């Protein structure tokens, strides 16, 4: 009888607090979005599952010595997991389209206005009672506009660990929502004639260019922005392993087994930060709103820049390409392609959009470095 009472006293039923129930529903929602809607399932499934585990009453997953506690401290507090993901992404990324058309980097640059405008917006939100974002908080929130998961997690782990859960969830959710968020903005800022513009075919790119590219990027980062070298450096390492042709077995492992293993743990660790006391706050609402704003501003800035560049360019530039500058690889490039096809069924923009798309990855890593240098 005593044992029965003890067992009952240990059940979830006897220990649930309301916040945990809500967070479990949040976790279930993430799982639903990942599995049934296909929203960034590789990350949102482990994040959602981690959220559920972290909120089990009396199970101790996030207490010192618990599974998620170890995973978070080993992988995210040290910054190692997002950097390994970045290495793997580098090993998966083909910069050919960007090397063939370097101007696309300006689209990737202007789309970062989503980040910096949101930083300002987050500070402005402090005018609303209940919000008290520090500059570090605001920077971590703003990076959502970079539309790049590992960059957001890395920066949040450095500047605002308490907000990491909400920031990561917002970043991946909006990346999945790119096909819904971007098209209206793209259409509002362009005329059908502009959307029909056909781009010139990309020039061939030599292997040598592809090998030197990551080294050149790293070199510039070393010279001008060492704070960005962890992110950019690991990304370039991955890309160098991919392109050099001498270490294919390392490159394959980096972009397959290693990134898969790290993804599982990264997701669980992010999910472990989704506790009621940290997520069920007014800040989270602010973060979600600001994240949506950041994506929208980034998209609009990219499109406007593409229009501007088109005016001065010798070769025509389809302004839709600017939307791909937010990164969200390869989703944003696909959205550009789709919206372009709606206007001109023979105009395939996918390859051209990959240029600004990968430029956006570099752009947000650079922006993260700037924020680290100024605020960190």
């Amino acid at each position: 009888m005593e044992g029965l009472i003890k067992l009952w006293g240990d059940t979830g039923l006897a220990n649930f607090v309301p916040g945990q129930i809500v967070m479990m529903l949040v976790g279930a929602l993430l799982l639903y979005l990942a599995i049934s809607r296909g929203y960034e399932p590789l990350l949102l499934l482990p994040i959602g599952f981690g959220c559920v585990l972290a909120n089990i009453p009396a199970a101790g997953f996030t207490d010192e010595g618990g599974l998620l506690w170890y995973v978070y401290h080993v992988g995210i507090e040290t910054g190692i997991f997002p950097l390994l993901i970045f290495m793997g992404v580098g090993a998966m990324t083909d910069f050919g389209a960007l090397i063939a058309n370097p101007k696309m980097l300006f689209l990737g640059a202007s789309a970062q206005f989503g980040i910096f405008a949101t930083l300002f917006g987050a500070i402005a939100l402090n005018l609303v009672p209940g919000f008290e974002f520090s500059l570090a908080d605001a920077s971590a929130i703003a990076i959502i506009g970079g539309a790049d998961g590992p960059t957001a997690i890395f920066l949040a782990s450095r500047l605002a660990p308490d907000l990491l859960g909400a920031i990561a969830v917002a970043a991946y959710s909006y990346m999945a929502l790119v096909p819904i968020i971007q098209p209206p903005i793209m259409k509002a800022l362009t005329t059908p004639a502009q959307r029909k513009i056909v781009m010139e075919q990309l020039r061939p790119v030599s292997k040598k260019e592809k090998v030197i590219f990551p080294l050149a990027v790293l070199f510039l980062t070393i010279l001008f922005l060492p704070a960005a070298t962890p992110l950019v450096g690991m990304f370039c390492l991955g890309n160098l392993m991919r392109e050099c042709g001498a270490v294919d077995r390392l490159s394959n492992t980096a972009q397959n087994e290693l990134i898969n293993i790290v993804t599982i743990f990264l997701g669980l660790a992010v999910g472990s930060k989704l506790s009621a006391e940290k997520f069920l706050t007014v800040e989270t609402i602010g973060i979600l709103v600001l994240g949506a704003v950041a994506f929208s501003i980034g998209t609009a800035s990219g499109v406007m820049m593409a229009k501007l560049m088109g005016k001065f360019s010798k070769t025509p530039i389809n302004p839709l390409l600017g939307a791909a500058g937010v990164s969200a690889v390869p989703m944003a490039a696909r959205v550009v392609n789709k919206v372009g096809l709606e206007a001109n069924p023979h105009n395939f923009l996918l390859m051209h959009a990959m240029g600004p798309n990968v430029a956006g990855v570099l752009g947000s890593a650079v922006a993260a470095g700037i924020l680290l240098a100024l605020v960190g």
Partner: protein
Amino acid sequence: MDISEALATAANIMLLGMVCVFVFLGMLVLALKVLEKVAGGEVVPAVGVVPTKSNIQVDANVTAAITAAVHKFRQTKSND
């Protein structure tokens, strides 16, 4: 730090950040222009699916097997 001061700082970062991003990626544009001069020109498809090693292996295996099979078959036929 009161809110107006914080806003000023944020505006400052916004300006500075965008300038830096553009300068940095602008330098990369220049670097890529130089790179094209120096290393470009080799005519290979810019982007596209590169056959992976395993595909090649399979194809080689397949080709070898088929060559053998067809050869054998031809011999068989000629003995008919």
